[in-house]
């Protein structure tokens, strides 16, 4: 009767159980990888889009020395973005340089402080930010207030008589913008800075 009170040993074949254990770990690892990789890739995959150029209008349509906002639908937006896709940049035609090339100053609307939208006041030739009172001069240079630098400049080019701008990443203001950083104080200095 001794055998009846003692339950039978679990491992009839200890080797088989060890093997089954390892098999389970391995299978689990494969399952976790198969599940984890695509899901992690989905979540972490940064949403990359190629640089796209936006036509802002014929060079002739910009009056020299006049700053105005040009609006466009950002090609970086989603089809369901609605009005939010409609963005803009400040464009100032600086005239032609010594090589008869049209020169532009294209400034992002986002304040360099915390990204609020600045307004252009043609009467005083100043950009003012509504949030913390950052002020910039017409050339985008910082005038006063908390911004640590001047307004961000967008990368532009002239193609077949049209001004085009690389769709800016709002308000990251990082990779599509003119990296040269230092804001030119005059048209002649700007002419030397590289643009696409």
């Amino acid at each position, binding site marked *: 009767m001794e055998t009846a009170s003692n339950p039978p040993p679990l491992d009839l074949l200890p080797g088989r159980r060890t093997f089954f254990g390892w098999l389970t770990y391995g299978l689990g690892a494969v399952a976790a990888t198969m599940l984890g990789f695509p899901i992690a890739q989905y979540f972490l995959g*940064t*949403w990359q*889009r190629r640089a796209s150029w936006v036509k802002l209008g014929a060079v002739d349509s910009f009056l020299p020395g006049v700053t105005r*906002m040009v*609006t466009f639908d*950002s090609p*970086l*937006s*989603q089809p*369901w*973005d*609605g*009005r*939010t*896709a*409609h*963005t*803009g940049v400040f464009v100032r035609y600086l005239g032609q340089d010594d090589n008869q090339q049209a020169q532009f100053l294209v400034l992002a*609307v*986002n304040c360099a*402080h*915390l*990204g*609020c*939208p*600045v*307004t*252009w*006041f043609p*009467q*005083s*030739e*100043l950009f*003012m*930010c*509504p*949030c*913390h*009172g950052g*002020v910039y*001069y017409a050339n985008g240079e*910082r*005038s*006063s*207030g*908390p911004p*640590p630098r001047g307004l961000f400049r967008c990368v532009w080019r002239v193609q077949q008589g049209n001004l085009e701008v690389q769709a800016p*990443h*709002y*308000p*990251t*203001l*990082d*990779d*599509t913008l003119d990296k040269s950083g230092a804001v030119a104080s005059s048209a002649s200095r700007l002419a030397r800075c590289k643009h696409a």
Partner: protein
Amino acid sequence: MRNWLSRIGGWFDHRLGVRAIVLSTLEHPIPRGAAGPLGWWYVFGSASLTLLAIQILTGIGLSLVYVPAPDQAFESLEYLNYEQPLGWFLRALHYYAGSGMVVMVLVHMTQVFLHGSYKYPRELTWLVGVLLLVCTLGMFFSGQILRWDPDAYWGLAVAGSMAGRVPVVGPQIVQLLHGGPVIGGDSLSRFFALHVFVIPGALLLLLAAHLWLVLRCGISAPPDPKQPVDPRTYDVDYHAELRRTGVPFFGGAVLKDAFFSALVVIVVVALAAIMGPKGPSELPDPTIGGANPRPEWPFLWLFALLAMSPPAAETFIILVLPVLLLGLLFLVPFISNRGQRAPSRRPAAVLLVVISYTVLGVLTYKGHTAPWSPAMNAWSSDPVPIAMVKQSSPLQLQGSAVFQNKNCRNCHALDGMGGRRGPDLSTIGTRLTRDQLIDQISNGTPGGGNMPAYGKQMGPHEMTALVEFLVSLRPPGQLPARVATLDPPP
């Protein structure tokens, strides 16, 4: 009938076996003091829970109509406000019950802090509570984004600019926050997911842990100066006292909770019905300048602190201060988990609470009035007060026009009307001389402070007229300002 019901109940409980757990939970003894008049201090946690239930209910209701896409979000909110029967009420209730939840959580935390209830053995309960506060605030912020008005859109822009200041990985964090290179559908969807799935999930899990800890560690007795906390003897004493004098939880204590919760529900429902839904103010249009995003009220203090701090401290306040404050809250039970619990014996704790709420209150008020923001329309919408130009010479009149045209008014008020970023100039003629005015206007604040240099922004004739106007701004009978060393007194 009753017999029949109890048989059905018995059938279920034979399989579920929850009766014993539920009964013992309801009847578990709590300290006698917590069931007496002092028990009114214990009602704030359950009130937070009641408001959370309202939030879940109204949240599910709103999700039946709301569309988390930028081209439809605004319209669906307007539909809720004006078309869907009682949609306006659900939106309003969701806002005011949410606000009430923040208030109740804060009051609950303050009570726990003042009564030293976070001390041994309830340190972990406090930590989970701090995480619940973070979740509650996270719900508030993500909820504001779903409103998809200019505050939401530009709030995201500001949040992105702040996150962009993180060294090295800043741009990646911004990308993660906005879900793409621009603010749009991906940003809204991700805050929808946060608001509806991620944060509520975390909140409910943490809440379960919080409640489990409350049951397991027991409700703390009202503080008694004669009974300081000693971790070596606390548990034995606490349980001995419970056995001797404890009263069941389901009784007087629950009645107080229920009474207060009912009161809170009546208040938020009345507030919702009277005040109506909040926003959405208008469609966010990135091409319209002058948008001045305001955070919701729980964040106004941080907004104000940021606006009033020197630029050098900004990045610290954005990136380090919140972490520091959170870390301090976490550290509370580890700084002192023993000793006195009574507020009468802990003057430093009481003082800390008074100072904290004074600072938060003042900063919130400042954030609400935001005197640092220029009034972008003042130059064209606030006329120069007639009394100031009634006796003016033509040159002074011209100067007043320059003053308006050059947008001075956006930062400088006249007679209290206009921007308040710079000083009110109603009596500037008594404070600055002609030369000082020219210097100030031409060069602005030295070192690129708060006033831009207008030297290149206006011609000599405009400057002459403007200064003439400013010098004339004096109360009747007052002489213009003079330099004491140069001008002899008249």
